[in-house]
């Protein structure tokens, strides 16, 4: 049996129905989804080995690759890797594959179209415009340090290594923020009720809200690009059924599963051979290739290495903004 831990909510159901079921039908290997509130936490917990596969954010996957917690696989074991963009395959120091990117979402600026337009957010720098005072939101320091700061640095000519250029814009964003949001549900509510006009947010969430009938929630990719956020599946060390898990991971790396998940959840496959249905491309309003061009992929390893100090920095920025 292969047990796959992921976050709760709609994603878990999609995974079970559109990935695991066909996989089990094809291979006869039993699979199961379990929901946990904190997947990276689950991998780091002393009991991680009860899961065969765990979905984590790409960033966390990179962070985990530096630990001794993940099972490594060779390229031969996961043949589908050849179809994945190499920069999104997570490898450990020995070069073994420890994280399979499944699909990706991206970080753009999400806004309520009743209160603002795409024109308002042509650039990430617009977030610092004082006219949005009290109308924006920002994520908690732990994510702001990894995502917002990196993206804003890039928008101002910096990169993962040199985030200094992004600091000013981040300060502006912080100054404009009504609150930090603590959960996606929290943010959905704030956007939906119009209490927040715009926020750096996840593309999949927007797609989801639109599906739920919230047509006034839209996302824009500013001219500097969007931050590519892939989801990675890792296998904790010591988990049972390595062979079945290997087959499962390979399946996750394949185009078939990625397309299925993407279509259901609003994501985009990482597998280069993936062919998205036309209907889905219509709702996205763009193509995979087009999107890939707009994506900014920072060196997550560098981001991870500086994570703790940058959290401290963002915390202090936020605290200063209060004065």
């Amino acid at each position: 049996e292969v047990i796959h831990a992921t976050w709760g909510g709609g994603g878990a159901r999609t995974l079970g129905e559109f990935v695991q079921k066909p996989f089990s039908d094809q291979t006869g290997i039993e699979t199961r989804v379990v929901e946990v509130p904190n997947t990276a936490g689950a991998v780091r917990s002393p009991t991680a080995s009860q899961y065969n596969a765990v979905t984590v954010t790409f960033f966390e996957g990179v962070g985990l690759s530096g630990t001794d917690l993940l099972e490594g696989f060779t390229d031969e074991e996961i043949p589908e890797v050849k179809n994945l963009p190499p920069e999104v395959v997570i490898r450990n120091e020995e070069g073994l594959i420890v994280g399979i990117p499944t699909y990706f979402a991206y970080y753009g600026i999400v806004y309520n179209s009743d209160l603002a337009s795409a024109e308002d957010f042509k650039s990430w720098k617009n977030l610092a415009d004082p006219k949005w005072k009290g109308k924006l939101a920002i994520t908690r320091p732990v994510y702001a340090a990894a995502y917002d700061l990196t993206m804003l640095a890039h928008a101002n000519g910096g990169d993962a290594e040199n985030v200094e250029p992004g600091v000013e814009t981040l300060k502006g964003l912080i100054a404009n923020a009504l609150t930090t949001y603590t959960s996606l549900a929290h943010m959905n509510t704030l956007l939906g009720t119009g209490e927040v006009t715009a926020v750096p947010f996840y593309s999949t969430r927007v797609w989801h809200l639109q599906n739920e009938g919230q047509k006034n929630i839209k996302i824009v990719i500013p001219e500097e690009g969007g931050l590519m956020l892939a989801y990675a599946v890792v296998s904790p060390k010591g988990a049972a059924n390595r062979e079945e898990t290997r087959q499962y991971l390979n399946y996750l790396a394949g185009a078939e599963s990625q397309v299925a998940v993407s279509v259901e959840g609003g994501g985009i496959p990482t597998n280069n051979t993936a062919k998205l249905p036309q209907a889905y491309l219509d709702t996205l309003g763009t193509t995979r290739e087009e999107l890939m061009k707009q994506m900014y992929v920072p060196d997550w390893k560098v981001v991870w290495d500086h994570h703790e100090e940058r959290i401290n920095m963002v915390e202090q920025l936020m605290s200063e903004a209060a004065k």
Partner: protein
Amino acid sequence: MRKLTPLTKTLGIVLLLMLPAPIVIVFGASFNGSGYIQFPPDSWSIRWYIEAFTDPRWGRAVLTSLWIAAIVATLITAISFLAAYFTLRYAPRISGWLELAIFSPLFFPHASMGVAAVALMAAMGIVGTPWAIILAHLMVTLPFSYRPIHVALRSVDPDLIRAAEVLGASELRALWDIILPICRSGILTSLLFTGIISFDEVTVTMFLIGPDITTLPVQIFTFIQDDASPVLAAISTLSVIITFLAILLLERVAGLSFFVQRQSG
């Protein structure tokens, strides 16, 4: 003389009615037709209730929470009863210290407690099993169970058990025949109160769940990480109703006086 001035009375009533307000709001929001939580609802619908009942994850979580709550309530009540009886009868001198120890978890920040618990349970190799959750809940509920039982036992005439012994009963027999039935309301209070706490506990529990086990509040918490559909409000409303029924039951069978008895003296 036994009456309040109208002003105080009105003030008391108004403040009292504020207490359930947020719950009423959640209740109202659960009938919202649109895709996010809102009050007053812009359209009415019971679709979230239908979803709550048809999605097997919720049912499973509710059942798990219920049976864990039942086991925790029973165990902790038995544990508290034995401890309270022993100290009251044989070791009144340590009773102050014991109470201090028993109440100390109350002063411990819950987030830290979850972390602490997971470290311990991992060392014992039981994370992800129901035992980890049950054990952690025992730690969390001990003060809430000990209090009403201690109060109940303290008000029992200690000569009753001696009377039973003089009549030829062994101590255990006397406890079972005499003291247990007499402390009924304290015991029921403990059972239901700890049951409710266990049923609602999330902060510590979320560190301890595993592939085969998750509880309702953790499921809710997990759910809101990713989703904000009013199904949450519907589920919340259902859990409020379960809590309400439990309290009502308690009021019927044991009264609520145990909540308002002084700790000591």
